C-alpha cells in the first residue's frame, strides 16, 4: 500500500491537492493518507505502517517535509521506497530528483524508477541534497588537511547530490559514493570547486541551511554516510 504523508501547509493548496488526488486515482495509485499535523509520533507511525506492509512512502510537501521524513527513515532498518510530490515553493530536492511539478510526480510514482541514494550528515542531521552557507567569513576545514578561507560575499554549497541542471559553463559535478562536492561562487570569475571526504564549516555570523530548509549553527561537520535511501526518481536521473 502507498502511504501518502500530507504536510500541514497543504491547506493553502487545496485545488492543487485535489488535482493530485484525481491524477493518482486515474493512475490507480490510491493509498492511505496521513496528515502530519494529526500525528504525535511520526517515527512510531512510520514504523507501524512499514510493519503493516506499506509499499511506498509518498511525501506530499516540500524540501522540509522530505528532509524530516528522510531523517526518520534513515534510522529504520527496513528499506522502503520514498517518493516526493512537490507542492508549492522550496522544492529543489524534487527538482534534483528529476521531478519538476506535482502532475509529473504522479506519473513518476507510477513508473516507480528506483535509485539508491547515499545520505550525507551535517552534525547529527541527515541530508539528501546540499548544505548552503554564505561564503563571507566562512572557513572550511577540508579533510583535516587544509583550510579554505573566504572573505568575500558569495554562495557556498556542499553537495551530496548536485542539482539536475548543471551550472552553466561550469565544472561538471559528479556523484561519487562517499565524496562531497564543494562549489563556491563569489563572482563569475571566482569559482571554487573540489571534492572532499569531510568538510567542517565555521562562520561566526551566518548559519548554514540544510536541504534548503533547516538552519543550523556552525561549527558543522559534514560527512558522507553509508546510509542509503531508496528514492523514486524521474527518467534520465541516475545516481551511480
Amino acid at each position, binding site marked *: 500500500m502507498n502511504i501518502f504523508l500530507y504536510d500541514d501547509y497543504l491547506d493553502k493548496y487545496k485545488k492543487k491537492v485535489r488535482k493530485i488526488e484525481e491524477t493518482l486515482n486515474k493512475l490507480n495509485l490510491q493509498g492511505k493518507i496521513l496528515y502530519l499535523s494529526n500525528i504525535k509520533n511520526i517515527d512510531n507511525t512510520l514504523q507501524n505502517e512499514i510493519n503493516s506492509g506499506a509499499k511506498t512512502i509518498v511525501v506530499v510537501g516540500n524540501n522540509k517535509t522530505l528532509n524530516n521524513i528522510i531523517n526518520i527513515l534513515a534510522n529504520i532498518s527496513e528499506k522502503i521506497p520514498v517518493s516526493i510530490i512537490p507542492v508549492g515553493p522550496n522544492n529543489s530536492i524534487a527538482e534534483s530528483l528529476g521531478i519538476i511539478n506535482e502532475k509529473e510526480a504522479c506519473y513518476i510514482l507510477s513508473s516507480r524508477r528506483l535509485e539508491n541514494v547515499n545520505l550525507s550528515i551535517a552534525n547529527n542531521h541527515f541530508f539528501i541534497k546540499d548544505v548552503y552557507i554564505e561564503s563571507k567569513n566562512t572557513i572550511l576545514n577540508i579533510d583535516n*588537511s*587544509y*583550510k*579554505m*578561507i*573566504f*572573505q*568575500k560575499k558569495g554562495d557556498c554549497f556542499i553537495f551530496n547530490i548536485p542539482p539536475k541542471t548543471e551550472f552553466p559553463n561550469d*565544472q561538471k559535478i559528479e556523484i561519487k559514493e562517499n565524496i562531497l562536492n564543494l562549489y*563556491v*561562487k*563569489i*563572482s563569475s*570569475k*571566482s*569559482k*571554487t*570547486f*573540489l*571534492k572532499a571526504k569531510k568538510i567542517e564549516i565555521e562562520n561566526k555570523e551566518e548559519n548554514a541551511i540544510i536541504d534548503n530548509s533547516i538552519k543550523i549553527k556552525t561549527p558543522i561537520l559534514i560527512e558522507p554516510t553509508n546510509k542509503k535511501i531508496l528514492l523514486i526518481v524521474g527518467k534520465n536521473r541516475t545516481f551511480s
Partner: protein
Amino acid sequence: MFKKEKIINNINNAETIIGESVHVNGHFESNGNIIINGSVEGDIKTKGAILVGEKSKINANIKAEEMVIKGEINGNLKVNGYLSIKELAKIVGDIECAQISIEKGAEINGQVTIASKKSKNNKEDEEEI
C-alpha cells in the same frame, strides 16, 4: 598539436579549482588536475597537472606531473614532466623538471635543474641498486 600543448589544454578539465580571492592554508593534495587562481600557503602535491593563474600568489613547495605558471610562487617546484613558465610569472625557489619553456618577461630566482624523465628514472634505478 604537440603533446605539451595537449596537456596544458587538459588542465581546463581540472578536478579542483581554487577561485580568485580564496585563501588556502595547509597540506593540499589531489590526484587530478588543479587550477589555482587564489592564494595558497603550505604545500601542494598532485599526480596531475597544475595551472597557476595570473592573479594567484603561492607560498608553498609544489610537486606535480606537469605545470603551467602565470602567477607568483615562493617555494620549490618538482615537476616530473613539462613545466611552462609564462611571461608574467615570478618564481622564488628552486626548480626541478624534465622539460621547460620560459617566456620572455618571466622572473626566476633560484636554481633550475632540467633532467629528462628517462635520466631521472635511471638515476632512481641506480639509487635503488
